[in-house]
């Protein structure tokens, strides 16, 4: 995840993708492909080839998972979000009833340590 690239880009979260392949089918530039590895749920998540994205949003709207795909048009907007030290991804915080007082990263589901 390099922040220096100014190109539009698509982020696909490894653990949130169910590998249905609808985005791969829909991408007008064929920039997405299924990974060979499994995620922890046993799916082959979609992977972005790394360049060529125009931020058209086709994959975002064809994806049935609420948070699996994010599309960024302007790289400056990256800086608006916090990054998890564990996984390096942008995250939001959530809490678990079983672990009172602790915060977890929505991206990797690990505890957030500042």
């Amino acid at each position: 995840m390099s922040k220096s690239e100014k190109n539009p880009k698509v982020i696909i979260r490894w653990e949130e993708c169910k590998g249905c392949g609808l985005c791969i089918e829909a991408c007008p530039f064929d920039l997405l492909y299924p990974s060979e590895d499994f995620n922890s749920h046993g799916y082959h998540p979609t992977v972005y080839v790394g360049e060529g994205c125009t931020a058209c949003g086709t994959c975002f709207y064809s994806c049935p998972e609420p948070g699996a795909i994010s599309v960024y048009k302007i790289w400056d907007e990256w800086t608006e979000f916090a990054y998890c030290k564990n996984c390096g991804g942008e995250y939001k915080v959530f809490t678990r009833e079983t672990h009172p007082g602790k915060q977890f990263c929505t991206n990797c589901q690990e505890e957030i340590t500042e």
Partner: protein
Amino acid sequence: MSKTILRKPEAFYDAFTRKAGDDFLTTTYCPGCGHGILHKLVAEALEDFGVQKKTMFVSPVGCSVFAYYYMDVGNVQAAHGRAPAVATALKRSNPESVVISYQGDGDLAAIGGAEILNAANRGEGITVFFVNNAIYGMTGGQMAPTTLIGQPTMTTPLGRTLENEGYPIRMSEIIATLEAPVYVDRVMLGDIKSIRQARKAVRKALEIQIEKNGFSFIEVLSACPSNLKMTPVDAQKWVREVLADYFPLGVKKDISATFPGKSKERHLLPLSEIPTILDIKESKINKDIIQNFSGKDFHEEIKIAGFGGQGVLSLGIVLSEMGMRHDFEVSWIPSYGPEMRGGTANCSVHLSNKKIGSPVVDRPTVLVAMNLPSIDKFEKDVMEGGYIFYDSSLINKAPKRNDLHVIAIPATKIADELGTTKIANMVIVGAMIEKLKLMSQEIVIDSIGEVIKNKKLIGINKQAIYKGIEFIKNLK
């Protein structure tokens, strides 16, 4: 499109912590399910229109039942097919809210056929999203009213036939024949072009509700890869080529341009006229006495439990009726179920000087137990410092907890001595008003006659209440 970032809409929870299990990031939907896409389109629209905070989502039975895991809006789950009726109630009681009824084909077209037609005919200011995937998804692929001719399902393994099951129902066309609906459209989630059209339809439908309080109905042809036994990509292709062939896409009715908007005012009788119409006489209750009780700051959650037939439910009714005569906020809700047949019955009563959010009682401050199973079942739930009233002539085992006020009353024995065991509940009413000092004894005794249906029994009921009061007085 002005947005420069496309990301999980704010109208979704950040993490779906209500879900069972450990994975709070993904939905319960199968890979490639149309529900996820439509959820996203709706959530995005709610965020963009800035109405997330006043939106109510009604999810009925079917795969979409778990929408309340995901949508960070007000959620109500309705009985099978009844979502438009529930949505009607929500919209009418709070006309400023945005109410969405989100239903599948089995739910809307089969069991809920009457509700949707009548809600549409009344032109309720709600938005209905009708997800049509031509099959019952959650229950494992049975035939739905929208299943195509020849389509094999769990219950029609050789395919739906005209002779046995008849033609698939085109709901949008039916709704479009009604006068009241403002906007009826059929879209599909078949490819990116059609998804973008669906997005427009979703936004237009919500706009009609927000701006004009009109009824809008969006039928969404959607893929169910699991039950069609296809890959997600093939299932979308099937939606495009087969499903959309029988269910033609397009706007079925659109009068939004000329629709003047529906008034949000409620057509109710003026409160002042109701007593005249119902022939209710003016209350003789002394307002000064009431002030001593209703002016206090209190909130009692009362659970009353016992065998069916002991007057458990009517004890609750008497308490709440008397509460009303003291100008309290009250609620009463019985527990129905298999317990009705000879087992235990129970009801929940709230008495408060503030508005009551929910009639349910999870942690009672007062427990009235009229048989042993009720003590076993509810003793652990009572709030610390709460009260347990139990019928010691029927329960030989006292509650074990020592952080409560426990009052043993031989209610059934006292009632027997008065001549009928049926008024044991009134003995307990007497004990409760004396012990809890919630209500004026004078008012309860005076107005008990208005609550008891059989006028011959008013006298003996009054006696029972006196006995209960006396019993507590003699304890001291």
